[in-house]
Every structure is written in structure tokens, then in C-alpha cells.
């Protein structure tokens, strides 16, 4: 499986309702040891939201210093972020990911680092 298969895929709950698309994938470094790198990066969950444009600018992490207009715009764009833990993923298809439960009970993403 490739990261690019996950990025941009649409999240559908059991009722077929969409929770938006995958903006990013959160990894935690606590997997089995791999060579010189140490613990491998384990897939913890998916950061999901309506708008994919500019998800990479980093404003959803809150540490960015500005400039103000860009920060406000980014803040407004990403106010609806959700977090899908690996455990809730049932199947991964080419452009869709089916999850258990419903969209409403998806938590908001906690701060990453």
C-alpha cells in the first residue's frame, strides 16, 4: 500500500455518508524496530476534512506565525477537521475508505506535536 493511495481518498461511514477527504496521515514512531532508524512509523490515523486545497501549508497545526490574512483564511478553511483512527477503518478501496460507525462520532484531531 502506498501513502498516495490514502491521501485524498473519500471517507464514507456505514450509512454511506461522507466525512470529507484524507488531508494527511498521522504516524507514531513506536512500531517494530527497523535498522538504524529505530522504531518504525506506525499508522495511527487519518486527518480528514472537507477542503483539500492548501492542506500542506501547515496552518491547521496552529504553530504558524502568520501572515494574518493567510492564517485567518486557513483557519476558516480547516475548521471542520476530523480524525479517523486506524481501528475504525473497515476497507480501503482505490479512492474510498469505508469506516465503522457514523461521521458524527468522529473526534476532532488532537494536536500532533
Amino acid at each position: 500500500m502506498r501513502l498516495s493511495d490514502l491521501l485524498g481518498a473519500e471517507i464514507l461511514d456505514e450509512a454511506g455518508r461522507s466525512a470529507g477527504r484524507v488531508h494527511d496521515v498521522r504516524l507514531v514512531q513506536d512500531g517494530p524496530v527497523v535498522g538504524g532508524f529505530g522504531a518504525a512509523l506506525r499508522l495511527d490515523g487519518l486527518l480528514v476534512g472537507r477542503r483539500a486545497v492548501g492542506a500542506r501549508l501547515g496552518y491547521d497545526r496552529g504553530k504558524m506565525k502568520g501572515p494574518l490574512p493567510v492564517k485567518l483564511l486557513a483557519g476558516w478553511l480547516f475548521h471542520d477537521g476530523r480524525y479517523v483512527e486506524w481501528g475504525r477503518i473497515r476497507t480501503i478501496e482505490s479512492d474510498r475508505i469505508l469506516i465503522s460507525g457514523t461521521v458524527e462520532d468522529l473526534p476532532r484531531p488532537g494536536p500532533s506535536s
Partner: protein
Amino acid sequence: MKRLFAVALGILTAIGGFVDIGDIVANTETGARFGMSLAWVVVVGVVGICLFAEMAGRVATVSKRATFDLVRERLGARVALVNLVASLFITFLTLAAEIGGVALAIELATSVNYLLWVPIVAFCVWLVIWRVKFDLMENVFGLLGLALVVTAVALWRLDPDWGGLLHGATHPAVPQGEGHPSWWYFAIALLGAAMTPYEVFFFSSGAVEEGWSRADLVTNRLNVYIGFPLGGLLSLSLMAGATLFLEPRGIQPGHLSQVALPTALTLGKLGLAVLLVGFFAATFGAALETGLSCGYTIAQYFGFQWGKFVRPADAPRFHLVALVSIVLGAGLVLTTLDPITVTEYSIVLSAAALPLTYFPILVVANDPDYMGDKVNSRFSNALGSVYLLLLLVVAVATIPLMVLTKAGS
């Protein structure tokens, strides 16, 4: 003492390196047609390039990552690819214009048709990129470019009605008989000439080439804040020369020979000789920078080794791209497409494409992960936001104005 020399050298090369064929053509044509009424745009452009180059230089110095490397990281592979194609096309157009500019400068000195010089110029540009050390190359052509100061000397010697010039500059108004669209089109061309994207690709990559560290940040700021404005003064002296000599006679400067008239008529043979050295150095230096920038942008997008600080064999694809760009650039000039026309398009398209690279740099300059405590100050963010808005407006207005004014005619 050595530090002082380094700072002085940096400022001098910044002045010499500021003016290129785009500035020469844009300022002279604007002066010949609109007098000093668009001088304020040069000021806006110089402030803009100071802000943009300082940010890009600081980002490259602190994060050790050059502009296009970060453009891809912040916009993602797909959006950055569109950005790469646009920026590369404009940098290539500018490269062709600069090669043509060098050939035209030699034509003026020899009266031998410029097309004959193009292959020789292209070979020399490649040879310098291939063999000469980065800072030696920068210093030689930066210092030689200072010869353009002769345009300011000519102005001083002429001792014109300074009040009249100043009045023209401080009371911008569309001269009668001219349309507003053309006036604004020339404003965009002037802005594009002062704020060309390749200058930032080159400036930020240069910070990595020369291995700048945080200690160099002060030198970086001095180079930019003193060097570029003085370079801008050279642009304004070209505009003033055209205002005084060409505009009253209705001369439309479509040739480098006409651009040299104000200085030749005021300072005679010696002035003309120094000016031709200035033309040659400014355009040759810019040809080197744009040739390298073609290599920088592609290498920094795909991630393969770039830079003159390594042996050519260690950066094969980078040197291959630079070589191919120079050959194609010379080829474009050899199609007898007028280099002045190519220049006019390259500066206008530069203005339109500025947000593509300006925006990501503005964002990265605010990311503590990269910049640590060297993130943008409140002032540079405020000014940065104003320029972001200005550049977006310019980007939207350029193509309609180009069509409306039939590219300024």
C-alpha cells in the same frame, strides 16, 4: 577588515547585478513614452524585491533549503509542477532575452550583426557556468555591472531641470494622448522587470551555494537593503535619460542603440564605452543567473543534486539542464525573433507569475519548524501581506491588459 570587504563586495555586486536586459528595456521604453510618471512603480518594485529576496535568502540560510525545494514541499507535487512549468518557461524566456541582450551589446561595439554573436555568447555563458567558481563569477559580473553607474553620471553631468523630473515622478498622471490601459501595462512591465522570479531562485540558491550561516544574515540584509535600492537608482537614471532625450523627440527606443543615446550624447566616447561594458556585464551576468536558475528550479523540484559547489560530475542532471536551456535559449534568439520583444514578454509574464513563488516563501518564512526564531517579524508579515495582495491583483490584470493594449502598443 576582511568582513568589511565582504560586506562592501556584497553590496557592490548587488547593485551591479540588479539591472538586467528587462530593466534596461522597461525603464527606457517607459521614460520615452510616459516620462517619469511611472517612476513610483520602480520604487514599489525595489521595495518588493528587497522584501522578497531578504525572506528567500533568510529561509535558505536558516533551513538550508532553496526556493523551489520549498515550493514543492508546501504546495505538494501536483500544484508545484504547474508552478514549475510556469516559472521555468518565464526563466527560459528571460535567459533567451539576456543572451540576445549580450549579442546586441556586442553588436553596438562592433556593428557586426548580433545573430553572429549569439552562438559565441551561448558557449561563453555555458563555459562560465561549467568551470568558474560561484562567487568569482558573481563578483566579476556584479562589479563590471557597476559600469551602468555611467547613466547616472550622464544625468548628473547634464544637470537637467531636477524639479521638473521630480515633479513628473511625484505627480503620476497618464500623459494626454495615452490610454490608461497602456499606462498600467507598462507599470506591470516595470514591476516585472524589478521583481523577476529568477532573481529569487538565484538569490536563495546562492545562499546555499556560498554556504551562508546565521552569521551571514546581517550581510544578506545589507546586500539587499542597500544594494537593490542603489540598483533601482540605475533603473531610474535610465528612465530619466529617456525622458530628457527620447520623449521630447518622440523616439520609440526599439533598439539598444537608441537606449545608449542619452549617455552617448552627454558623455561622448568614453561614456559610451563604459555604458557598453555595463550593458555587456549586466546581460551576461543575468544570462548566467537565468541559465543556472533553469537548473536550480528543475533540480530542486525533482530533488537531484544541484549547485556549482560540487564537481560537475556530482551534479550531472543539473549541468545537463543548464546546458540544454542555454542551447535552446540561443536557438530562440537565432530564429531572428527580436530579443527586445522577447524581453518585453518575459518581464510582463514575470510579474504575472510572481505569486506562484512569493506565496510559498511567505508561508515558509513563518514556520517555526524551519526558521526557529528567525521567523518573519510582524512588520515583514504586514508588508508581505500587502505585497501578496498587490501581486495577486497584478497576476489577474496582466493577461487582460496584454490583450487590451496589444502588448503595450
